[in-house]
């Protein structure tokens, strides 16, 4: 029983760290551009198809295929921002939100046109033996997922806190006008944010597809919406919040699947969101902000 709980916790950590990677994209874009990029989940789907194209159709080796996937997603993120969101910089927030939903449908429909609706099976590119520690089995994909997400999060944290571009991002997120007054190019900072967020979504997409091994055009929707929940849970706009929110969400999901009900696990996850927001509307690590008049 104890080993079982431990295994479920580790599974939860694996799924949760993927949610966390995706949630980082939501939270960073929200922090900088003050918008919810609902097309973010579909970047995962594009990443998964990009990996499929690279490995199965182009026969690229694993490492170039991964690089290809990350480049495709980052460029796509930048293009989406430039084409769909930038013209709406001063538009009402609702217009931007609806546009984001439109972009999401556009990406899903485009991949439906290209790759059709039938799910495509995909062989995982991660072939590492599972290990056994004191009776607890940890699969190869779990190890890789945990290592990759940990490295990504450390790298992102260092980037945000230690580099000039990172402090520019923090400045824009806090006060866009003041950031412009110290000479920060806000448009370039927003572009960079979308590129980083989409890069992380590509990494998440690769890990996700290695776990689920099947591609379909709507595959980004559910992890996307759960990662959004994770970002809100952790406090939207907060980077450590997104990491924490993602991991907590993954663990709750995994434990409820194992010990309560597989069918109810999503309902439980969303109920947790409702409860947390009732008790602490700003999320775990979110800051209470007084809206400026």
């Amino acid at each position, binding site marked *: 029983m104890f080993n079982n709980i431990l295994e479920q916790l580790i599974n939860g950590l694996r799924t949760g760290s993927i949610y966390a990677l995706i949630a980082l994209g939501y939270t960073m874009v929200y922090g900088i551009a003050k918008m919810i990029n609902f097309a973010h989940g579909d970047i995962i789907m594009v990443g998964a198809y990009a990996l499929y194209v690279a490995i199965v159709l182009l026969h690229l080796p694993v490492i170039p295929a991964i690089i290809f996937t990350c480049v495709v997603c980052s460029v796509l993120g930048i293009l989406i921002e430039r084409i769909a969101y930038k013209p709406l910089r001063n538009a009402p927030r609702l217009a931007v939100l609806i546009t984001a939903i439109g972009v999401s449908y556009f990406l899903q429909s485009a991949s439906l046109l290209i790759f059709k609706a039938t799910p495509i099976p995909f062989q995982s590119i991660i072939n590492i033996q599972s290990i056994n520690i004191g009776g607890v089995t940890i699969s190869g994909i779990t190890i890789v997922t945990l290592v990759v997400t940990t490295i990504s999060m450390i790298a992102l944290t260092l980037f945000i806190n230690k580099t*000039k571009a990172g*402090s*520019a991002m*923090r*400045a824009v997120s*806090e*006060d866009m*006008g*003041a*950031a*412009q*007054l*110290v*000479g*920060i*190019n*806000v448009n370039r900072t927003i572009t960079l944010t979308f590129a980083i967020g989409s890069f992380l979504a590509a990494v998440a997409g690769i890990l996700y597809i290695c776990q689920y091994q099947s591609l379909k055009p709507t595959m980004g929707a559910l992890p996307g919406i759960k990662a959004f929940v994770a970002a809100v849970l952790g406090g939207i706009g907060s980077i450590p919040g997104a990491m924490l929110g993602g991991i907590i969400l993954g663990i709750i999901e995994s434990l409820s699947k194992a010990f309560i009900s597989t069918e109810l696990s999503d309902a439980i996850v969303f109920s947790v969101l409702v409860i947390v927001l009732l008790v602490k509307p700003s999320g775990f690590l979110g800051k209470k902000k007084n809206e400026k008049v």
Partner: protein
Amino acid sequence: MLKVKNLNVYYGNIHAIKDVSIEVNEGEIVSLIGANGAGKTTTLQTISGLLKARSGEIEFLGHDLIKTEPHKILQLGVAQVPEGRRVFAELSVKENLQLGAYTIKDTAENIKEDRKMVYKRFPRLQERKKQLAGTLSGGEQQMLAMGRALMSRPKILLLDEPSMGLSPLLVKEIFEIIKEVNKSGVTVLLVEQNAKMALSISDRAYVLETGKIAMEGNAKELMQDEAIKKAYLGA
């Protein structure tokens, strides 16, 4: 150095700035005084490029600022210390100053020298360099906002209500520093509600009333003007 000609700025349908013309010569301290809502901040925001003018000209050292983006205006040498300081509260004092030098293309060594100069001018910032800017007192935040602007090596400093919310003693200190900064070769355009203080350190001044220039002239002469005395100097 800075020439604003027939500037008109609107907020939606509200005509906030009406045909305002201002000139600042190199080395001067010029102040823009007027009541709350007269359009002082709007004028500065438009010079810095954060607000767009509907018509008029803004020229700085031969460059047209009207269509220039805010970060490029800063690079030309126009730095603003905004109303309410607007320091980056969640960044440390040092990080705030470092961001002030964001557009400076120079060695880290020389930027560090600039930072030392700021610390010399504002010793209290040095004591608190690791502290988050949000934890500073109002006076310290004003100093940080000024230090941050100075880090960009400005040719002209636009100061928006530096005295706001500060004790009379601190206001005096801040104005002393403005004079020193000006003596070190930085031209100053000062926006103030505290007309007495502003006029006392200025060479020239403009009086803004409901978006229009109501009066302009030598600061000392304006201080003697009966109408100004009555409306702004509390005499």
